[in-house]
């Protein structure tokens, strides 16, 4: 029902995106949440049990953008992964990258400024384009991301380092001199400086090929309509008519996305199995309980963006048959409470630390479903990163603001309030503003925060607005930012600690609107450390550096993390389960087959 998309807000409330990246580690071995529930993914199928049939995935909302060059959202990746072949993608069931459209892993020069990628032969576009994919198609795909007609959200962040990448966005796609295509199967990137995550970023959907001759007519409009006419390079394509349009055919906004086989896909060029003949993403389901029960009854096969609610999880876990179909995947990031460090009272570090002490993280976790929902977070890099930053940050042992049972320590908090200048440890200033979601669980989180703040005398005024309003009018706009934005969090684009810490905490990323550095943290020491780490090509050195940065950021208490979330995915007994470990456990239709 209406409020049920609070559960979908699980994904939406924190604008979460996960990409893939890095090598595997403890992320894929048995890891335990605080409830003793395993987060091991299902074994990745190596062959189809049956070929054919239709898969049905249920979801609440729609993709953020249907254009693969614009998509920046975990649910969208459930569509782009089977239809668009990026240069690299994650090995099934892991977060390790392997060549996808690329013929082999990219070669990086010693100085890190030249990256060479070979394109696989024999990959063809779907109808109506049909021809073979060349390096020029990948070049164009990346170039179009910089134009305002396409406006990709991460192009500048990860690919801005390419020579010739525009500093101010052109209106329509323009060539970038730093991307060279010496022959149809070779791609060379010339960078202005080394970038540690550049190769990992080649797994983002922006690198999936786009045929310029076909797409130009759509991209040369103020707002590109290529998305509604897109062609695919993967085993599946969004159903289209003869002219290539998907609107009303395979794409009914907020209702249905229908994938059918790409007739030009050659299975010998791909690691994907592609067992089913058709995949239907049916959208608009507001009630997570109904979705869960529909999947359990076999009328649908997996949840796309609307996880089973805690009550359902309990009943599923208590059944020996049903619990076999439920899997938890670490999302890779953290949820946190952002404090505005540019306005009183939280411009005072002691006041912030007082808040970090007084917050009852246990109660906060209960608003999202208790221990089954994940581990209480004490810093930002998530446990699934293992030795790629998590351990370097001190693991679960690093907790600068400890309290008994994570329920908050009012005494310590009051001490720090005294240090901040409040005589008896109780706040004496004006009301603080909190802008929160108007639906649960975001609204519940805000309520808990307000109740905890009251323990040190801070009275809060909760402004309860829709999601869209919260972000675009308040929390993402530094000028209008309230004292507290409680419903924020960050998921990494791929499995590199930079992707967790850089955008949300680097001072250079503060922009006047659509800002994601919610605490407006601008600490010169931390900024410098991040800039150094971004250029460190050696992985172990890099993870050391980011581990330390995680600790530094946590100690500023400008944002207080409270949950490393595990995302539940439920499959029906009718299918062989497979999920994307690098994308919050989203169902991987490339490997699911009907039993």
């Amino acid at each position, binding site marked *: 029902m*209406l409020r049920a998309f609070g559960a979908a807000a699980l994904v939406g409330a924190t604008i979460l995106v996960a990409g893939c990246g890095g090598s595997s580690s403890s992320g894929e071995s048995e890891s335990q949440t605080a409830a003793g529930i395993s987060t091991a993914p299902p074994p990745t199928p190596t062959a189809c049990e049956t070929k054919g049939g239709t898969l049905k995935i249920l979801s609440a909302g729609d993709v953020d953008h249907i254009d693969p060059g614009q998509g920046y959202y975990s649910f969208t990746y459930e569509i782009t992964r089977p239809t668009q072949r990026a240069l690299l993608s994650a090995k099934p069931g892991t977060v390790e990258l392997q060549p996808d459209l690329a013929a082999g892993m990219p070669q990086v020069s010693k100085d890190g400024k030249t990256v060479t990628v070979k394109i696989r032969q024999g990959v063809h576009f779907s109808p109506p384009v049909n021809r073979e994919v060349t390096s020029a198609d990948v070049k164009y795909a990346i170039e179009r991301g910089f134009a*305002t007609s396409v406006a990709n*959200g991460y192009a500048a962040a990860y690919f801005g380092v390419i020579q010739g990448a525009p500093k101010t*966005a052109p209106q329509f796609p323009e060539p970038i001199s730093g991307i060279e295509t010496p022959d149809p199967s070779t791609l060379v990137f010339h960078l202005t400086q080394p970038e540690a995550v550049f190769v990992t970023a080649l797994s983002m959907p922006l690198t999936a090929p786009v045929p310029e001759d076909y797409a130009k007519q759509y991209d040369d409009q103020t707002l590109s309509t290529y998305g509604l006419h897109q062609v695919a390079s993967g085993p599946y394509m969004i159903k289209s008519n003869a002219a290539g349009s998907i609107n009303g055919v395979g794409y009914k*906004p907020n209702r249905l996305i229908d994938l059918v086989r790409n007739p030009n896909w050659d299975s010998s060029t791909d690691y994907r199995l592609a067992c089913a003949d058709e995949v239907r993403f049916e959208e*608009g389901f507001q009630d997570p309980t*109904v979705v869960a029960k529909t999947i359990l009854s076999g009328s649908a096969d997996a949840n796309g963006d609307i996880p089973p609610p805690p009550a359902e999880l309990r009943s599923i876990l208590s059944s020996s048959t049903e619990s076999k179909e439920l899997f938890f995947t670490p999302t890779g990031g953290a949820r946190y409470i952002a404090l505005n460090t540019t306005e009183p009272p939280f411009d005072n570090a002691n006041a912030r630390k007082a808040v970090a002490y007084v917050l009852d993280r246990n109660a906060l976790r209960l608003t999202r479903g208790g221990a089954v929902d994940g581990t209480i977070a004490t810093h930002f890099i998530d446990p699934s990163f293992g030795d790629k930053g998590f351990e370097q940050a001190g693991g679960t042992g690093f907790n600068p603001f400890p309290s008994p049972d994570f329920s908050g320590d009012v005494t310590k908090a009051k001490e720090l309030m005294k240090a901040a200048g409040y005589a008896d440890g109780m706040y004496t200033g004006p009301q603080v503003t909190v802008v929160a979601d108007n639906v649960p669980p975001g609204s519940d989180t805000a309520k808990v925060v307000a109740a905890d703040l009251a323990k040190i005398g801070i009275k809060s005024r909760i402004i309860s607005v829709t999601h869209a309003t919260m972000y675009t009018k308040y929390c*993402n*706009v530094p000028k209008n930012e309230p004292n507290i934005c409680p419903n924020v969090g960050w998921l990494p684009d791929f499995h590199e600690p930079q992707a967790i810490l850089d955008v949300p905490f680097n001072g250079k990323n503060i922009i006047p609107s659509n800002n994601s550095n919610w605490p407006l943290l601008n600490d010169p020491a931390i900024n410098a450390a991040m800039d150094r780490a971004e250029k460190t090509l050696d992985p172990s050195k890099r993870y050391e550096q980011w581990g330390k940065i995680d600790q530094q950021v946590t100690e500023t208490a400008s944002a207080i993390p409270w949950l490393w979330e595990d995302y539940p995915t439920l499959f029906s007994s009718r299918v062989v389960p497979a999920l994307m470990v690098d994308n919050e456990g989203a169902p991987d239709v490339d490997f699911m087959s009907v039993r």
Partner: protein
Amino acid sequence: MSVHVETEASRRPSPGGPPGGLAAAQRALAGVLGSSMLRYVVRRILWGIVLLFVVSGLTFLIFYAFPAADPAALRAGRQATPQLIEQIRHSLGLDKPVYDQYWLYMKGLVLHFDLGYSYENNVSVTSQILSRLPATIALTAGAFVVWMLVGIPVGILSAIKRRSVVDRTTMGASLLAISAPVYWLGLIALLLFSQDIGELHFLPGAGSYTPLTSDPTQWFFSLLMPWFVLAAAFAAFYARMVRGNLIDVLGEDYIRTARAKGLSERRVILRHGLRAALTPVVTMAGLDLGVLLGGAILTETVFNIPGVGRYAYDSIINSDLPAIQGTVLFGAFFIIVANIVVDVLYAFLDPRVRY
């Protein structure tokens, strides 16, 4: 002798009494062809068009002038540069003054019937509304049938058997139905009857709506609960209204006269009472239908029916301005048309109304 004369007289058309039979139809026909009726209809239609303009202007004022969220920022997505957002704002025309935007929008609407393109996914608002219209029509029409078929007979029965047990029961039930919010009733219904989570599993639950063309059986059964839940309050309201009207009418002098003349009770009621009692009901029914066709937001929400009402609500939540404008205009259109149809019908039936 005098008895017969008066019954005949009561059937002859008279200026003040209830219009009767053939003669009235003949006069009405003359009226339609005549200029006064035509003038009336034209006047109402013209005023309806003016109303639509005013409604669209007000909508612009409420939603565009005070947007709850920033559509350009929403469209730009995460980590977009401010420059990008400004460019998107410019390409969406949002940096123009409100009256400019209004002018451009109205030009598109009037000249091309173009309701614009959704800020959320760039799909045409018209196509979205049209694709969701069948669900809303199905829900509304079905509920309409149910509430008329239930409410009117119940009201008549209760009026005839006034103060009996039947009457008290039905009126009590009606009061309950009017007092319960439709979303609460919907939840109770789901809890009791839905196949997936209900106690007695025999009807499809929320979200099971399928279009008529793909699966007629499922379509029908998935709409049963929504029809009855939506119709409940209306049926109750109409039952009460019909009962009240009929009791009023049955107390009128001419009814007493008819009774005194020895006409059978049934004839009294059916011939004379009902016509007068039901005319205002027809009016209300038309108006209610008009309002509901704009989208029954609450029912569509509880039962997850992909109709226009739900679309309107979602677009307000997402500050999808063209979609908001489109759905508001759409709803207003049906309300205005319903009003015109009902007024014209009334004028048809009672020429005094055509001032």
